[in-house]
């Protein structure tokens, strides 16, 4: 039995990703003709396939910059960072950071945060299932002891805080409604959660994302209030709780005895 050397997958990949390079030497066509256009099928599959995956993953970013700009930008991202697992729904985890460093997109300063929000939406889509605590049960909790209570949040829960009104931007692109021009001079903190199968994206009052982060890392409600008021003096606890209750963020609340 002849043992041939391993074929050079590394060289194949380099040629795949760099159109300046010729196709690998060991490839041939039946007529002995140049293999460039045939090899381009593989180049195209890799590049266009991944750009398409990003376009599906970041549809609002695509709307914000237009198809031509988005695809060219996405292609830069693909060449810089290929997926690290075969699960394409995880692809794009560094896209927001990439966009924030991408000079041609600088004139849309809110774009990275919209990308962050869209990635959170995609992650919520695939997150584990859990049943939200019904309001009747929450009402029956010993409310006077909640200060030292902790909570289990729905696995899909995510928050994205931005200096721009990202929830408003997201919503106006998800709906066809005509709306009045959007002022960019205020920030929004987005709450993303998928208690059943539909994904909810809603704004939290200022400090709300710190409140949620504190609860998620195991902090008590008292500690979460402190975390929120540390960044937002006028943190509106009631409004924040109303939003969290309405969207089904709480899966369990444990009250210490």
């Amino acid at each position: 039995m002849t043992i041939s050397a391993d074929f050079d997958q590394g060289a194949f990949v380099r040629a795949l990703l760099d159109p300046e390079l010729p196709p690998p030497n060991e490839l041939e066509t039946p007529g002995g003709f140049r293999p460039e256009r045939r090899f381009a099928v593989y180049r195209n599959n890799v590049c266009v396939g991944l750009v398409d995956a990003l376009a599906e993953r970041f549809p609002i970013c695509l709307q914000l910059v237009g198809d031509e700009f988005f695809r060219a930008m996405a292609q830069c991202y693909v060449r810089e960072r290929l997926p690290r697992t075969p699960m394409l729904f995880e692809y794009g985890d560094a896209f927001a950071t990439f966009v924030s460093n991408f000079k041609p997109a600088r004139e849309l300063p809110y774009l990275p945060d919209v990308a962050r929000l869209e990635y959170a939406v995609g992650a919520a889509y695939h997150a584990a299932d859990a049943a939200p605590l019904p309001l009747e049960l929450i009402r029956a909790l010993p409310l006077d002891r909640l200060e030292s209570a902790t909570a289990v949040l729905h696995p899909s829960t995510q928050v994205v805080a931005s200096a721009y009104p990202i929830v408003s931007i997201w919503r106006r692109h998800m709906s066809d409604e005509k709306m009045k021009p959007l002022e960019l001079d205020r920030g929004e903190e987005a709450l993303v959660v998928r208690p059943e199968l539909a994904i909810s994206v809603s704004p939290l009052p200022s400090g709300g994302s710190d409140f949620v982060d504190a609860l998620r890392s195991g902090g008590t409600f008292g500690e979460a209030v402190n975390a929120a008021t540390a960044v937002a003096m006028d943190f509106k606890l009631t409004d924040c709780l109303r939003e969290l209750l309405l969207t089904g963020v709480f899966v369990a609340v444990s009250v210490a005895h």
Partner: protein
Amino acid sequence: MGARSAPEHCRERAASSLPARAGVGFKSVHFPDIEASARDVGFFEIHAENYMGAGGTPHAQLMPLRRDSPLSIHGVGLSIGGAEPLDRAHLGRLKTLVERYDPAAFSEHLAWSTQGTRFLNDLLPLPYNATTLAHVVAHVDEIQEALGRPILLENPAAYLRFQSSEYSEIEFLREVVRRTDCRLLLDVTNAYVSAANLGFSADEYIDAFPMSYVEEIHLAGYADDVDEVGAPLLIDAHCAPVPDAVWRLYDRALARRGPVATLIEWDNNIPSWPTLLAQATQAEAFLGRRRRAVEDSLRSEALHDDLG
């Protein structure tokens, strides 16, 4: 070679319990149509990697689908044809998925898609020689061990060939089957596309294919292009109805194989549910004619026996 080849009595095990009917690739957008229809589809096939998240809509759709119809899971990310060791984490995820849904069949590709930590999202080609054979055999063994079942291995679509190939594709596939006791998924469109691109006869390929090991067939549309010198360059794009030439080749394969589970693959420019269903109905007609031909020949044999 004796050490690797499976004992003869083990060769009876089937890798697939899919019915000999036409199935379709399941697309999320079709779910409401499927729920509302009489669901007259032989089976559904999904891409494993789309169902490796923990929950949400993908699983909420797949659970009722699996309850009511046979399911085939088709992997696109194991990189069986690569020289590198398999991604154990990915194999673990696959094992979890297969255990969760206990599909009628699991299939993967004779191709590679991962290099180092980079996933290239395409089914890339390999030369067919002793070295690559050893890698493929080791990988198929490892997957079958992990999943506790034989898998189906699919023939790829080729655009180029390697100077370092020592086996034909069919010789290579035969060797993999002999050494791993896996089974085969014959993609008739890939055979047609490869034949056109590499200048061999698709009919001869089908006639030489180890048909007794085929437990599923794939059919799809391809895209038509030409290369620099005007030679045909067909691309396996899964973007169109199955063309007539592929139906003819399919019938040729069925004549040798007999009726077998057949999937309509349509992944790009996804059609409406009725359009997809019409393709499955067409495949079902081929299967029906072949089934009747088998029955007729059995009847005439029985008649012969009676007369004899």
